[in-house]
């Protein structure tokens, strides 16, 4: 479906990626809390490097190609493909906490979206409960947000959440965090472009160090974040 009402779609996207969306985005660090604890990330430059790494690998090869397939499957009402890619994304989450995060946020989205007037077909609801990205794709599609814009917003929302987690954990000043966001935002258009061109065979990204950080976070003695 093509929309001419770009302004409304843009505003919808701002709403969808807002940290105030009650799906708990700010409660997860995705292993960063342990990476700080063990000395891998101790300053602004290292936080930037950690995030840049995830942008150029994880976002390009996993999040964006799968988000695109979920969005397309919703658009074409291809339930089988939607199921396949929702499962694929969960299977690509390497640790218990990363899976729980995906599912917790998915469950929160599944209950929130209908209250925002976003139709969630009955057969899709279980998929959203198991996979946050499926819920994001459903909302973006329903609100006529073009795929590339939705993908850019998805990345930006992630970047803001994790940067702010980093600012708190390291800790860094608020300005340092804002500088990181401003700097890394310049890469997002290219990341979207490349990510949308990834073919099925090249989907997937393992990050051994991040997986170790996320796993050891499970038993970290003092922790604020849920992942």
């Amino acid at each position: 479906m093509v929309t001419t009402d770009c302004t409304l779609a843009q505003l919808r996207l701002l709403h969808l990626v807002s940290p105030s969306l009650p799906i708990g985005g700010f409660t997860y660090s995705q292993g960063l809390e342990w990476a700080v604890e063990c000395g891998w990330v101790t300053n602004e430059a290292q936080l930037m490097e950690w995030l840049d790494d995830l942008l150029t690998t994880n976002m390009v090869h996993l999040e964006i190609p799968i988000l695109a397939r979920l969005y397309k499957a919703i658009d074409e009402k291809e339930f089988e493909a939607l199921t396949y890619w929702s499962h694929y994304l969960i299977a690509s989450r390497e640790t218990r906490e990363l899976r729980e995060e995906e599912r917790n946020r998915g469950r929160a989205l599944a209950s929130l979206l209908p209250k925002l007037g976003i139709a969630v077909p009955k057969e899709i609801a279980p998929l959203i409960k198991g996979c946050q990205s499926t819920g994001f794709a459903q909302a973006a599609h329903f609100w006529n947000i073009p795929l590339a814009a939705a993908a850019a917003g998805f990345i930006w929302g992630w970047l803001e959440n994790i940067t702010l987690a980093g600012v708190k954990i390291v800790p860094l000043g608020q300005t340092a965090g804002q500088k990181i966001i401003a700097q890394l935002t310049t890469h997002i258009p290219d990341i979207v472009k490349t990510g949308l061109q990834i073919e099925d065979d090249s989907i997937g990204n393992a990050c051994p160090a991040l997986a170790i950080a996320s796993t050891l976070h499970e038993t970290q003695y003092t922790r604020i974040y849920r992942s």
Partner: protein
Amino acid sequence: MVAHSSIPANAIKSSDWLAQLHLGFSKIAGKTHLVERHRKGPLTVQRALYPEQDLCHVYLLHPPGGVAGGDQLHINIDVRKKSAALITTPGATKFYRTSEAWSSQHQTLTVSDGCLEWLPQENIFFPGAKSELHTTVHLKGDATFIGWEINCLGRPSVQESFDHGEARFRFSLFRDGLPLLHERLVIKDQKDLFSCAKLRGQPVFGTLYATTQETGLVESIRSLVPEHHKHELAITLIDGLLIARYLGDSTESARTLFCDLWKALRPAVVKRPPCTPRIWHT
């Protein structure tokens, strides 16, 4: 949506090894037999051994002198109902430097209501190798599985880093057709090698996988990790699969740690005491 090789077709010369090995295990009269053994090219196995009476131990032999550019190895293992097999290799698998032709090893492990222990020794990727290693595991019904993969980029023992070449890894595990785990790692330059969320410049990385529904197992297995390795080895449990990941600088450490975990896991997963393959002692 099946994963295909990403090696271009024109990168393969007719002189290259195209090796295939298919092994099928079945339980007959209370004992697992290697009932199917089809091979093409230099991949082979020695005769099956029975140090534990009914469970079949098999040693997989790679082409003499390792895997060179252009070689394509396909390994297909099929473990059928109630049968139980342990497969290992007598030594490390070496992937050699190549000028342009890629080498690949694709392995498909299918376990249907049986049990497979897949414990190959490490893969060593020489500087300049261009290699692809794909492993696909299909578990069906009540299948149980313990497997590991240990990869070494370059030769840290002689201070040779993987400063050129390319390595692509993919590991996919399915339970009754549904994807349970997908991992894909591409190392194509120094940036990938030193990437802080990936390998952090460490040459050795490995993963051990074990099916289990016992949530308490993960705590007892974690307690076995020696203090000085506690930042190199991490153990998590996802959807009925225990995963241990190693990232460090020593294949020997990875092997020793995984072997200890395997010994501790075996009674719970395979319902047997540990029985170390004799070939590891030689």
